[in-house]
């Protein structure tokens, strides 16, 4: 399958600005008592996932490259998550 056109430098700067805002939000969330407990955990995981996804999709070009590369990466990523979730549950880490 053909590759799609890549973002412009201006787009990269915009994505970096969004990443900076998300990082600021990550720092702010633990300071807000209203988010204590499960909401804080969910918010921080969600914000981290957003940053992770933005870098992978745009900076690593997985959104625009051949699907083969995306699939190879996802096999490693989504292979690791259930394996280590089982490990952690086995050792009652939570």
């Amino acid at each position, binding site marked *: 399958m053909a590759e799609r056109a890549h973002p412009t430098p201006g787009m990269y700067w915009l994505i970096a600005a969004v990443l900076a805002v998300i990082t600021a939000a990550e720092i702010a969330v633990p300071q807000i008592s209203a988010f204590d407990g499960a909401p804080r955990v969910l918010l*921080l995981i969600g914000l*981290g996932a957003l940053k992770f996804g933005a870098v992978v999709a745009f*900076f690593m070009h997985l959104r625009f490259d051949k699907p083969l590369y995306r699939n190879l990466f996802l096999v490693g990523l989504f*292979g690791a998550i259930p394996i280590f979730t089982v490990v952690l549950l086995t050792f009652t880490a939570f």
Partner: protein
Amino acid sequence: MAGAPLAEHAPAAGHDEGHHDVRPVRKTAMWVFLGSECVFFGAMISTFLLYRSNTNGGIGSEIFDIPFTSASSFVLLMSSLTMVLAHGAYYGGDLRQARVWLAATALLGTTFLAGQIFEFSEFIHQGLTLTSSPFGSAFYMLTGFHGAHVAVGVLLLGSMFLLSLGGRLYDDRGLNVELVGLYWHFVDIVWIVIFTVVYLLQQP
């Protein structure tokens, strides 16, 4: 990646006659490597989560200096921007600009490493060492291995910079720049996970 890279610098037509183009193979190999690295870091992050509360009655996650680590994280995040700009400049045919962004990426990576060394020395000074507790062992192993990856990345960036000075950056039609970029971004996304799981989520 983006369009036809620098046709004037690409090998002349017929140069590769009789040879297979190994570029897709090398890029595929890099993605397989990065996929396997997910499992590697997954094991280390899981180990940290298993031992995060096992401090032997000593120092735990309260030692973390979140504002300082946040600044380090931001530096590494911005190095991903400079890396992708280096890549873009290269494909746009602006070697001088690509060289500047490569140097900026290496500088930001070095800054991150300096921050990590400072952080480690502070923690050791306060009594958290590799052998003080399972928490300390898991923390230093995880963040230390990530730091080693960053150091390898800085060396690779330095090599790219030197190759560009010698006019050899266009060997392999820029594949080396692309592969180093993929490695560098991967190091960045691993830190995004470590920063969230090890630092932010462990705050009381």
